[in-house]
């Protein structure tokens, strides 16, 4: 059960388990963002859950096509910001009013007004750090290893190529049928990706 939970969490990050015969999934190349978007829509409609689209830049509308909801990074950033605010307030209050109060030209030991700049700065800082760390955590990054890198074609994903991968871990996955389905919806070519321990780069 824990294993299932772990696999589900990893699936949200796009990390899938290979099958026993080391087949990780199929990788299909498409010609342009429009083709990829429509293909993703069809794949989602066909009931696949463990799949992803790869592109050199984010494609507008892809989240909806894949049936993905809102990203959670916002919540994480908010929590970070709240922490920063609380920390800044506590820091200035405790050091100036509790631990070592010093009379600074008759001003109150702790007041909100002069504390605002630091409260603001730490809110922003912690929120930004939380957003970045949250984004990396939700993406499962850094993750230098991915079976997709075994495909030579895949090296162009950061240049000008558009891919769709369907993982073998998906319930509906079948090597021939899924491959044929992808050909139907307009793939230029379909590769089977195997998860072998390869040292050749």
């Amino acid at each position, binding site marked *: 059960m824990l294993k299932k939970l772990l696999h589900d969490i990893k699936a949200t990050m796009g990390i899938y388990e290979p099958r026993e015969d080391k087949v990780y999934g199929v990788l299909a190349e498409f010609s342009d963002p*429009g083709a990829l978007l429509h293909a993703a829509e069809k794949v989602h409609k066909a009931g696949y859950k463990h799949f992803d689209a790869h*592109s050199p830049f984010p494609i*507008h509308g892809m989240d909806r096509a894949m049936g993905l909801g809102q990203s959670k990074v916002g919540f994480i950033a908010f929590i970070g910001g709240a922490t920063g605010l609380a920390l800044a307030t506590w820091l200035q209050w405790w050091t100036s009013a509790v631990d070592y109060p*010093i009379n600074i030209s008759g001003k109150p030991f702790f007041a909100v007004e002069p504390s605002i*700049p630091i409260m603001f700065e730490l809110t*922003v800082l912690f929120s930004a750090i939380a957003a970045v760390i949250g984004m990396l955590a939700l993406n499962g990054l850094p993750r230098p290893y991915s079976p997709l890198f075994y495909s030579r074609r895949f090296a162009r994903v*950061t240049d000008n190529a558009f891919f769709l991968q369907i993982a073998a871990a998906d319930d509906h996955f079948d090597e021939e049928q899924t491959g044929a389905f992808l050909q139907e919806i307009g793939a230029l070519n379909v590769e089977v990706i195997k998860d072998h321990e390869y040292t050749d780069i």
Partner: protein
Amino acid sequence: MDKVHTTDLAPHSGDGYHADPPLITGNLSFHEITDLVSYHTEKKTPLTWLLAFGAASTGAALLLIMIAYLFWNGIGVWGNNIPVGWGWPIVNFVFWVGIGHAGTLISAILFLFRQKWRTSINRAAEAMTLFAVMCALVFPTIHVGRVWVIYWTLPVPNQMEMWPQFKSPLLWDVFAVSSYFLVSLLFWYVGLIPDLGTLRDRAKSKLRKRVTGFFALGWTGANRHWRNYEKAYLILAGLATPLVLSVHSVVSFDFAVSILPGWHTTIFPPYFVAGAIFSGFAMVLTLMLIARKVYGLENLITMQHLEKMNIIILLTGTIVGFAYITEFFIAWYSQVEYEQYAFLNRSTGPYAWAYWIMMSCNLLFPQFFWFKKLRRSIPFMFVTSIIVNIGMWFERFVITVTSLHRDFLPSSWGYFTPTFVDVLTLIGSFGLFFTLFLIFLRFVPMVAIAEVKGVLPQADPHYYEGDGHATDHDVPYVQPSVEKTEGPEHA
């Protein structure tokens, strides 16, 4: 409607009805953009770069020597003395921090305003921000006198069980500028991740693959990743925007919360922020004019980009000029003799030479950008960008020194002269800045490749439907009711 896709002086651009001129000229494909930018990080080091790097690192070495001399001998090697206790170091600090703000504005604020043209310059501008803030942070660090106890500015438990004085703007600065540096660094790095993936996938040598692979964090361009990435980018942009406004406001508080005439004024925060954007854009312009020529990026950083930057320089320069006039007006209207004297002294006293350099560089020169011909002239904008930076340095100088050298009590009045250490330290800081920037140009893609691709019409999935005619959401495609040639105003 096809006529609207011409490049240069495009009529109707920005009117919301006709499509804007293309962001990228030269009809570049995605692959060509990748090649154009990545090539410069992969080729053998060019001789010009080595020479420039040699000159810049000499400057940086000079900075280190001056700092060592300063630490050994004390603040007396500078021109600082009563009554002018704050001299060039503070001027240089505010100068460099101000320059940094343009980078964040381009990255964050223009992103929120959906200005797609920012994608060609934001990587270099953000890098400029990081390096400018590094140069800036040098000065408050070294000017304290006892640099070995600089850690007292941080709320770190120490041997005296004392804490920093949190009601002081000097301390707010510590938090503000440090936060600004860290957030800018995060923003820059996050933007770099997809491009590092690009470099990794093109890498031939093992070392290059390892290094780019390490920093690319395993990026695969997966949409699940893009989704979170875009959200984080938006949040960072949304955070960096008020940050930029607050940081320079806090820097202005260093002056504004004092009681000196000429300093103690509520106009400082907006005035400083506008001035920072003004000088920062001028620096970005200087750097981009050189980089686009040397690296052959005229198709990515087009005349449209340069013109838009000049318009922002014109706008912020006008705001700064307006602030100058407002200060004068308030000095007169308030009938406070000290305030009035402070401004009279600035324009007619011993530092009038500095004051008029500042006025002509900042108030006069940018106004030439009202003329389209000058806005689109590269030699003119290059000269203007340098003049603006000179003017803005002098503005900080005039603000700092004129209010200090003659304040309330005439018997305390004096005249400040910089020493050779002051001058060489400033030159050295430029050396540091250019050294860092040259390293950036050599090893890091200077244009945000993925972002540039992402704002092209070919990146829009709807481009591939129907007639292959990409239309912006804001641009309604109006079908002409009758097939006829369009009238003269559409030429």
